[in-house]
């Protein structure tokens, strides 16, 4: 690897103090993410995948180890507005139109009005919502709302996109389409994407790198560099031999990490 990693974790630990004693949410996490990668974090609930993403976003603070984002601390990266974050729920403001919602970060970050308009139009067409700007969130389906929330995260100049189970609440058919669109979007924007999921096909289909995590304590069980081609991948690729092999390895990684023991 020639360029410095965009996200670099060395021995990252996070212990939550609870009434039932300390909970080791992350244990000795080591990971480098290079610029332009699409990295999925997969594992059962409690494996720390969301927690790790939140650490990158400075929404949680590791209790040990070093974590850098763009070479600086996550907190500094947050203040520099280095990333867009997409949550599982779209979380659009019902009192704002779709365009108004996408504009929210731009208003907060002090973009000029003309720039705001231009960016809103651009990202809305990027997520295939051109012409829906004047609609209110309740007038859109769940999938369209989630696309709007992705547009909101893309509207400002952040070269990292963090997505926490963004399609977790959607049905599989909508999800397939959004996955396909997300890959196109990634190719069009060349952002570095961190993507949390608990779906094996989703992780394998989307990623250049799959981080398999396991619970108690939350740790990395396996890191798989995908041999699948970068850029556009047809949905049919999921029937290919390579795809099934990676999916198998992910499953093995989960099993080795005792992820299937309940």
């Amino acid at each position: 690897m020639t360029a410095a990693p965009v996200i670099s974790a060395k021995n990252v630990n996070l212990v939550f103090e609870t009434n039932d004693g300390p909970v080791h949410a992350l244990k000795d996490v080591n990971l480098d993410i290079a610029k332009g990668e699409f990295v999925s974090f997969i594992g059962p609930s409690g494996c720390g995948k969301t927690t790790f993403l939140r650490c990158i976003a400075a929404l949680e603070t590791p209790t040990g180890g070093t974590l850098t984002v763009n070479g600086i601390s996550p907190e500094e990266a947050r203040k520099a507005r280095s990333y867009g974050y997409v949550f599982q729920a779209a979380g659009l403001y019902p009192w704002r139109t779709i365009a108004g919602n996408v504009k929210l970060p731009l208003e907060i970050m002090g973009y000029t009005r003309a720039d705001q308009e231009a960016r809103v139009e651009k990202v809305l067409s990027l997520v295939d919502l051109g012409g829906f700007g004047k609609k209110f969130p309740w007038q859109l389906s769940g999938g369209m709302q989630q696309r709007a929330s992705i547009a909101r995260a893309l509207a400002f100049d952040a070269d990292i996109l963090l997505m926490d189970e963004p399609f977790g609440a959607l049905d599989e058919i909508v999800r397939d389409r959004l996955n396909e669109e997300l890959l196109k979007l990634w190719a069009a924007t060349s952002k570095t994407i961190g993507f949390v999921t608990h779906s094996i096909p989703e992780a394998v289909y989307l990623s250049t790198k799959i981080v398999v995590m396991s619970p108690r304590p939350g740790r990395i069980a396996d890191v798989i560099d995908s041999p699948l081609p970068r850029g556009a991948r047809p949905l049919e690729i999921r029937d290919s031999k390579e795809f099934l092999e990676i999916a198998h390895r992910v499953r093995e990684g989960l099993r080795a990490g005792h992820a299937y023991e309940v």
Partner: protein
Amino acid sequence: MSRLLPILTVLAAIVVLWYGAAVGLNSQWTYDQAARAGAEPTFVDVIEDTMMQDRPVLPAPHQVAEGLWQGVAGQKITSKRSLVYHGWITLSATMAGFALGAAAGLLLAVGIVHSRAMDMSVMPWAIASQTIPILAIAPMVIVVLASLGIKGLIPKAIIAAYLSFFPVLVGMVKGLRAPDAMQLDLLSTYNASEPQAFWKLRLPSSMPYLFASLKVGIASALVGTIVAELPAGATQGLGARLLSGSYYGQTVQIWAALFGAAILAAGLVVIVGVIERVVLRQMGLVR
């Protein structure tokens, strides 16, 4: 019609019960008068008489309605006997007190939500303030302010504000805290400042809570104003009308003033409700 029918049925039942109670409660006087005159009243006589006494224990509905009508439409509105005149006096103090109380409640809520110190220190006092009977504190406020030369609308407005700030405070503390952790995290990823979070998320999210508490607050303001008009000396307002009615045993006047106050309160709550519907619909918070 299907919505009106249950309401009318209940109303009719109340009126029937009321007439029954009026006959029962007022008949004693009829019998006493008849006994004094040595007459033997028939049942029809009794019923007739209980419906038209000058100072009945319980005025019949039509007497109250007539009193109300006389008070509203039967006088020049500048007359001291006009309910419109007294209603206006009460309404103006209510609105002033409500504005004062709502503003105070709003500001305190903003402070409580943003400052842990205020959260710990203000809330217990706010709750304690509402445990003191307003009937006990109102005369003292009136007397103290009067000794300072402050009379008329302001003392009443202060007591109205004292009652109406509380629901607004409680409602807005809840409302400003309504955004969930995810919404606040999202703003944090934008590195939004606390004022930005307030104007763009907390305040809009609190609107349903604001209107719910404003409805309670405006009714409380009216109660506070009327209570403030009760202490001796007040000659204007629905409260004074209630008081003078009870001095002179004018039960019809009391009931007419009571209904006047109830209608006023209902009207104020309805107005807030209409504004609520328009605003929340505009904001996409109700459909």
